[in-house]
């Protein structure tokens, strides 16, 4: 049983804020939607990478002769014969890559599974077979994959600081000083990473599984050494990415190189095993939190020192201090961070990077503080609510954390909670109730869109952004419908192709906030042209009218003084004018350049309330109920929005109780690299989830007042579960995932 509530801030008739079904749903459920690997171009050949079986060392010799002579094999590429490819320009934000070292750059092995050769063959089976016939000898050393990041002797970076935290902590009446660990988690979108690269002359087209077609084009142009305009990237649908598909990985360049050599389309699908080593992960984090408070619970000191592991070739900073500086009011605060190198593939942003592991640590520490203070954990948060962003003195554009906490408490029934460990029972089980606050940034970047009103009576939008499965196609359609009055059947949204006007990368929960102004602006411009044409086309009943007095309603052009029914369908005006259509373009800028957003601290907020059921005799723990209250601005589509939040909560159950990529200490192999052994939450693990959107528009971010909802739903889930686990069992788990091993330590032995 799941429920969703949202009160539409717009007019009750507006399609904006209405819970509409996603327009791409039928394409997906009928199998018509084409994902990257579904593109079967004539003459396609198949590429399969060979992976290193050591985690640290160098290739001593590579014998491809047997593989090369196997049936169907067309090419074997490796560091000894790959032609020149380039690195992407460092710190170029328009052309980011995930792993800066291009594939096969040298003979060094930095992590288990690194690609050491690429087989290209007529069929996938032939390529797969030949891949096992490549003989590689290594000089190998024991890789460094330790899950412990301390002791750390390197340099710390200060992320944020105010007051004098160490003195204030020393003097605090009540203190918590603990270290929290979050494990390596692997992005496991069901759609595997896949590239189909196809050269024709000196141009190349990529059918890609990417969260950013424009960035992908720019990066691949730099890597392949060709002009941007020679590269096209197409991503019609994505079976999600969770951050793992933000930027290109090595296999994309390999597919392109192979296609250039053979002048045939090359398809390369990363296997599930490779997903665990070669295309990113949420890095291991180890965070020490020191929180000091007065006896009445007012925070006086907050210090976070966060380590995360990174690879040998990239400095990936998880950014665990993302939410720490502004979530609570505290006069003395310092956040520092540092990186520890490991023989692992390069980490990559995973849903809610930084904030999600950071909030696990901070909200767990807050829960421990509440226990130390003998104070209700909700009350502790309310008491320390921040009126302004104390890290920079800015006002919040819109902050309703207090209301999230209060609404969540009421919906959950928090007032019935008894604080004692193991004090609540139901049907032979112990209940644990826990909660946490949540936050995630609110962003808007630049976007260009074209809207066309066609003689076929349809409205079309085009934008080189992509729908990663969250509902962006539908957001475009909602705005077009709002502007033109056309039903969805007469609206087409074309995304995921770099030949269209440039739109945003799908990351940071900013897509909706970013595209709204551009698509609305383009629609307005297209409509203005249309009305102008109506006013000036001879023979039309509107001819000679002042265009300013004309309106487009329900697809009909009419005088503002008349009912729409008295107007004319816009397509007949276009027909009289002998036009195939009119279009409007619009480009909107980033919030950083917007005077409306200037000097404001913009974030989304939330509260998570969790119930766990604990059967102590058999150490069985299940999350039974979650109440989530989200303050993410105005919700454009509460149905797709609630879907995002519910999915994130289920992911949070996995983060708290199940997910962990385990490396074999001897060779650095992710040893549970498959979906039977790497545990994610299944349907029976999914709790009853109650989602509430507060729906306060944040007009500083855009004219619709929308922020983003893709990540905030995961923030705070794991610490709320950990706090519920403590409440039920008395076991405080500071290292995720919480396992049966931990629960067996509970002194509560019966319910």
């Amino acid at each position, binding site marked *: 049983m799941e429920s969703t509530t949202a009160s539409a801030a717009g007019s009750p008739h507006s399609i904006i804020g209405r819970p509409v079904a996603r327009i791409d749903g039928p394409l997906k459920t009928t199998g018509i939607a084409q994902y990257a690997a579904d593109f079967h171009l004539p003459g396609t050949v198949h590429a399969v990478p060979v992976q290193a079986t050591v985690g640290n060392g160098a290739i001593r010799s590579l014998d491809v002769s047997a593989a090369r002579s196997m049936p169907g094999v067309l090419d074997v590429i490796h560091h000894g014969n790959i032609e020149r490819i380039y690195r992407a320009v460092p710190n170029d934000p328009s052309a980011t890559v995930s792993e800066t070292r291009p594939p096969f750059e040298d003979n060094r092995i930095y992590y288990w599974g690194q690609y050491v050769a690429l087989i290209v063959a007529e069929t996938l089976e032939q390529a797969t077979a030949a891949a096992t016939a490549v003989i590689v000898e290594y000089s190998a050393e024991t890789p460094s994959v330790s899950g412990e990041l301390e002791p750390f002797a390197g340099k710390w970076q200060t992320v944020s600081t105010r007051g004098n935290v160490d003195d204030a902590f020393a003097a605090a009446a009540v203190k918590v000083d603990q270290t929290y660990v979050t494990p390596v988690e692997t992005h496991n979108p069901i759609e595997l990473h896949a590239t189909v690269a196809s050269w024709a002359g000196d141009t190349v087209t990529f059918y890609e599984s990417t969260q950013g077609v424009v960035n992908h084009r720019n990066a691949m142009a730099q890597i392949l050494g060709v002009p941007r305009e020679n590269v096209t990237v197409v991503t019609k649908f994505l079976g999600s990415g969770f951050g793992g598909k933000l930027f290109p990985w090595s296999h994309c360049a390999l597919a392109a190189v192979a296609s250039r050599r053979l002048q045939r389309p090359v398809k390369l699908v990363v296997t599930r095993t490779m997903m665990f080593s070669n295309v990113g992960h949420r890095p291991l984090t180890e965070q020490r939190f020191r929180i000091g408070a007065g006896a009445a619970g007012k925070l006086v000191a907050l210090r976070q020192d966060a380590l995360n592991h990174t690879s040998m070739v990239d400095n990936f900073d998880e950014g665990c201090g993302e939410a720490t500086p502004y979530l609570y009011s505290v006069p003395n605060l310092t956040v520092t961070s540092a990186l520890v190198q490991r023989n692992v593939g390069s980490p990559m942003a995973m849903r809610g990077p930084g904030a999600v592991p950071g909030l696990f640590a901070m909200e767990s520490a807050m829960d421990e503080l509440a226990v130390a203070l003998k104070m209700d954990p909700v009350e502790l948060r309310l008491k320390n609510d921040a009126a302004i962003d104390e890290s920079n003195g800015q006002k919040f554009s819109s902050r309703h954390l207090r209301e999230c906490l209060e609404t969540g408490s009421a919906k959950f029934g928090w007032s019935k909670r008894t604080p004692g460990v193991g004090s609540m029972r139901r049907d032979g089980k112990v209940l644990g109730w826990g909660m946490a606050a949540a936050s995630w940034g609110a962003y808007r970047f630049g976007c260009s869109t074209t809207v066309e009103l066609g003689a076929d009576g349809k409205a079309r939008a085009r934008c080189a952004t992509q729908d990663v499965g969250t509902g962006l196609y539908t957001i475009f359609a909602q705005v077009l419908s709002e502007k033109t009055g056309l039903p969805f059947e007469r609206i087409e949204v074309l995304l995921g192709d770099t030949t269209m006007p440039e739109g945003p990368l799908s990351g940071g929960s900013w897509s909706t906030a970013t595209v709204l102004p551009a698509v609305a602006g383009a629609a307005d411009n297209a409509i203005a042209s249309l009305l102008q044409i109506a006013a000036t086309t001879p023979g039309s009943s509107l001819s000679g009218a002042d265009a300013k007095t004309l309106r487009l309603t329900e697809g009909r052009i009419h005088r503002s003084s008349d009912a729409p029914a008295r107007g004319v369908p816009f397509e007949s005006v276009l027909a009289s004018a002998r036009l195939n259509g009119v279009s409007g373009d619009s480009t909107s800028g980033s919030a950083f350049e917007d005077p409306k957003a200037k000097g404001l601290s913009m974030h989304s907020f939330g509260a998570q309330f969790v119930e766990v059921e604990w059967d102590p005799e058999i*150490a069985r723990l299940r999350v039974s109920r979650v109440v989530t209250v989200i303050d993410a601005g105005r919700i454009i589509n509460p149905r797709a929005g609630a879907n995002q939040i519910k999915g994130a909560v289920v992911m949070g159950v996995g983060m708290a109780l199940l997910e962990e990529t385990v490396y074999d200490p001897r060779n650095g192999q992710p040893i549970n690299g498959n979906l*039977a052994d790497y545990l994610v939450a299944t349907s029976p*693990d999914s709790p009853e989830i109650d989602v509430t959107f507060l729906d306060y528009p944040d007009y500083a971010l855009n004219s619709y007042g929308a922020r983003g909802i893709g990540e905030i739903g995961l923030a705070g889930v794991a610490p709320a579960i950990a706090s519920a686990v403590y409440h039920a069992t008395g076991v405080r788990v500071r290292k995720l995932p919480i396992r*049966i091993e931990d629960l067996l330590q509970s002194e509560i032995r019966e319910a």
Partner: protein
Amino acid sequence: MQSFSYSKAQTLDQATAAGGRFIGGGTTLVDLMKQGVETPKMLVDITGLPLSSVETQPDGGLMIGAMVRNSDLAHHEAVKAQYAVLSQALLSGASPQLRNMATTGGNLLQRTRCPYFRDPSYSNCNKRNPGSGCAAIGGHNRMMAILGTSEDCIATHPSDMAVAMTVLEATIHVEGPKGKRTFEIADFYKLPGTAPNVENALEPGELITHVTLPAPRKGSKQVYLKLRDRASYEFALASAAVVAETSGGHIRYVRVALGGVGTRPWRAHEAEAALMGKPATAAHFRAAAEAALKDAKPQSENGFKVELAKRCIVRALTTATA
């Protein structure tokens, strides 16, 4: 590419004469072929053999054809009514899709989930390459066995169904070059010892045709309890199958078998001995659990299984005697 021939046998004789590798649902075998662990040259599909019925025997027992799918067996009326432990065990295993494919014979012969066994890039696996060593010892071993292990192999037997059949004292019927043979399930599975590559009593070319179960013991209660990290679609960390009969608060009959902890479906004779004739109380259940695990040999990561298995036994006994 590893090419192989494929044929579908219509009769038992055809199947056993073919000299190929039998394939039932293929949910174990095809996976392992894709991994390069199994490399049969000839596959003989046996799912067309007339061995897919479940029949009540004149003695009140049950005869289960080797081709009966796991889902069909789990939902069979006689199984649900009289062998609840078997139905529960089947439904706790794998996923609905896998259970729809998996056969009774294939389930009995499924291979271990030891990750080092399943990855041929590890040359050191005594089960795959006799004499090569054991990569799991000293590696990631959280899921490994704690009972019946040897210096040469610590792989867990993964089947839930076989644990239920062990507690029900099933008989396995085979046919092949040596004609028809039968095995008590307890004698069918081998401990790894120094030859972990030998997992059972089957000889090359022998086909499992049936499993028979003795008539259900009147007045007994049956329970299968499986403990694991997530709520479904995971192999057991520890499981317990119990058949028990009490009268006057005392235990008159009891059979206990364990899954997820042993190198074969684990019959806990020590637990049974500790319980026979004793009052059905928590203290006796715990004592039985202690007895069952007294020889446990945990590895670096799976020490928790010892206590978990004990709790599992206690709960299953409690439920079966309630």
